[in-house]
């Protein structure tokens, strides 16, 4: 049974949607890791961008404030900062994650 060109296009389109949603790692950084690693804290910030139109990067500014709020009266050390992009064909989601260890002073 021959498949019509329209059906082939629809199948190809669905196949494309299935393989999108791919995650790529843009950059990663790590600060010195403390010996005491019992209390892990994490902060995440993200932004969804349509067709690459992104006019500011202010969404990353509150990353350290989130970490400070989760570790009051302490230090956050051994911070792993991960910058990743998830692509959904024409929409991109940029996610910055900072994970560290809270040490109480």
């Amino acid at each position, binding site marked *: 049974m021959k498949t019509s060109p329209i059906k082939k296009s629809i199948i190809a389109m669905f196949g494309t949607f299935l393989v999108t949603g791919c995650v790529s790692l*843009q*950059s990663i*950084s790590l*600060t010195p890791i403390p010996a005491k690693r019992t209390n892990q804290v994490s902060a995440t910030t993200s932004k969804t961008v349509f067709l*690459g*139109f*992104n*006019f*500011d*990067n202010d969404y*990353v*500014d509150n*990353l*350290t404030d989130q*970490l*400070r*709020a989760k*570790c*009051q*009266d*302490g*230090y*956050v*050390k051994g*911070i792993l*900062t991960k*910058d990743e992009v998830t692509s959904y064909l024409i929409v991109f989601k*940029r996610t*910055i994650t*900072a994970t*560290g260890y*809270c040490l109480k*002073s």
Partner: protein
Amino acid sequence: MRLLLAGMILFSASGCAVLHHVQVGEVDGRTNVVSTPIDIKVSETGINLGEAKDIAKGLSRNKQTQKDLDDLEAIVSLFQQGPRTGNPVYSETYAKDLILELYKVCPSGRITNLMAIRETRKYPVISGEIIKIKGSCITERSRRSAHSTSTQQNI
């Protein structure tokens, strides 16, 4: 008219911000310190030769000129090989005084909550290659209170 309108829309929408790299340093969450925000930005103008070539080709109707522009761009790009973030700049040392700028805003040098951001502001042909440093200058609250008390006693 439609072309002009499309061009204006494209120009206004093309001032895009591209985030290349974010790095977070150690975070000091103590409440018995005075934390003064620090925000430093250094930047340099970057040039996108590919876009400049495309605009020049669009303005020229001579096919030989268009071919020459392609060849010229190909030759120049041979000298711009290698990994980089954003567009090439004329002076790559624009960030070398960043440490001095940090000491200017925080002479004590007690800096924490550092976040380094490398981003690009894209416009047609040119771009702003930006490095931002955000952080906090720490001053001990107890020392300031003791200093204030001793100052009052002297008066």
